[in-house]
């Protein structure tokens, strides 16, 4: 494509550039970047580090990369494990790529930065998260026309669910299991509103309190991947997001059976 002449890298440099670009791509995909972004940024990182060209095959649980320098090709694969969404990590890598392109960082600094990003992620304080998520779901209830009692019940129910979600995540439960139990916790607490006829629309508390479990990011990523041509990754993400939604539905049904409050039907 470009006709610029690059000096061929030594084998060591070439291996290092390939490894770093793949590492960056792996982190991007693990922390929730869409495929188009992963492909572009990995390509840019590799070429900025001196390779002539990078070709990347993105799939849901692995990335394969072939890099070219002069007549030499190198191909590597790395596994992708879903680590949840972390936009700070994704932004940091994006900035890193731009800095390498401008010649402000070399391979050594890139390696240090990637190591640092892999070892420790930025997270908000967990109690602050419980407060904010509780408030968020309560605001959803408010937006749908709920009054202050509904707001209050939704706040408590989602805060409890967020606490359950954090605890189960911390103990390494499977994500879908976590989603079932968190949804059940939210629904059980929110069922107090219809049970005691609190507020103007008691059922709204049940509907709004589980909204913290909506897989918004995977769903949006799924569709935008498919729109931008990464149909296979998009379908995989869509299926995974659907399973999360199904898990929430099962949790809701579980709680409705236990409490006997049928707010959803």
């Amino acid at each position: 494509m470009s006709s610029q002449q690059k000096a061929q890298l030594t084998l060591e440099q070439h291996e290092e550039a390939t490894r770093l670009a793949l590492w960056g791509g792996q982190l991007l995909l693990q922390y929730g970047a869409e495929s188009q972004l992963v492909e572009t940024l990995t390509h840019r990182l590799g070429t900025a580090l001196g390779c002539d060209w990078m070709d990347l095959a993105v799939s849901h649980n692995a990335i394969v990369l072939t890099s070219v320098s002069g007549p030499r090709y190198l191909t590597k694969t790395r596994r992708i494990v879903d680590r949840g969404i972390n936009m700070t990590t994704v932004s940091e890598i994006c900035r890193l790529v731009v800095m390498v392109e401008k010649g402000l960082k070399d391979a050594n600094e890139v390696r240090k930065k990637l190591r640092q990003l892999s070892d420790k992620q930025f997270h908000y304080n967990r109690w602050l998260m419980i407060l904010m998520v509780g408030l968020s779901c309560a605001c959803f209830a408010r937006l749908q026309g709920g009054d202050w009692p509904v707001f209050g019940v939704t706040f408590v129910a989602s805060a409890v669910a967020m606490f359950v979600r954090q605890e189960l995540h911390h103990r390494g439960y499977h994500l879908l299991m976590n989603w079932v139990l968190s949804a059940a916790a939210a629904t059980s607490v929110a069922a107090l509103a219809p049970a005691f006829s609190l507020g103007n629309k008691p059922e709204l508390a049940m509907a709004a309190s589980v909204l913290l479990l909506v897989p918004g990011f995977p769903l949006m990523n799924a569709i935008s991947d498919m729109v931008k041509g990464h149909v296979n990754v998009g379908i995989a993400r869509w299926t995974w997001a659907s399973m999360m939604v199904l898990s929430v539905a099962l949790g809701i049904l579980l709680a409705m059976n236990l409490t006997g409050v049928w707010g959803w039907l």
Partner: protein
Amino acid sequence: MELLITLLDDAFFSAIPAIGFAMLFNVPKKALAYCGAAAAIAHSLRTLLISFGMSVELGSFLVSVLVGVLAFHWAKKKLVPEQVFTVAAIIPMIPGKFAFATMVGLVQLNIDGAVSPWLLGDVIDNGLKTLFILGALSVGLAIPQLFLERSKPVV
């Protein structure tokens, strides 16, 4: 006047969840305010459009194009991916309730033994709403990028 108050109320109560969910996605601190602002503008504008009789789907599409344009510029300025702003900003408009209602109905259809027409109708209703609103939001966000950043001329 009354409409203005409704819209301000709407803007305020949609900015909070956008910021809350942005934190859930570990969006950098400096970008949180942008997510909240985009969500407030988008959600209140959609409420306005719906009050003029526009459908939820078309309204969602139009305002998500707006969010996409805003995010496109912010992303260029701050050197971060657009997704940092876009997803949190449209979170208040994601049809989560419809999605869950679809699945709950689907499971219930099976449990009940006999497929009841009204429950089936509900499931199809909610399912289609989920699909089309999600599609409208997601494609809307992609529109600015697809138009402003075509890598090659069409002809």
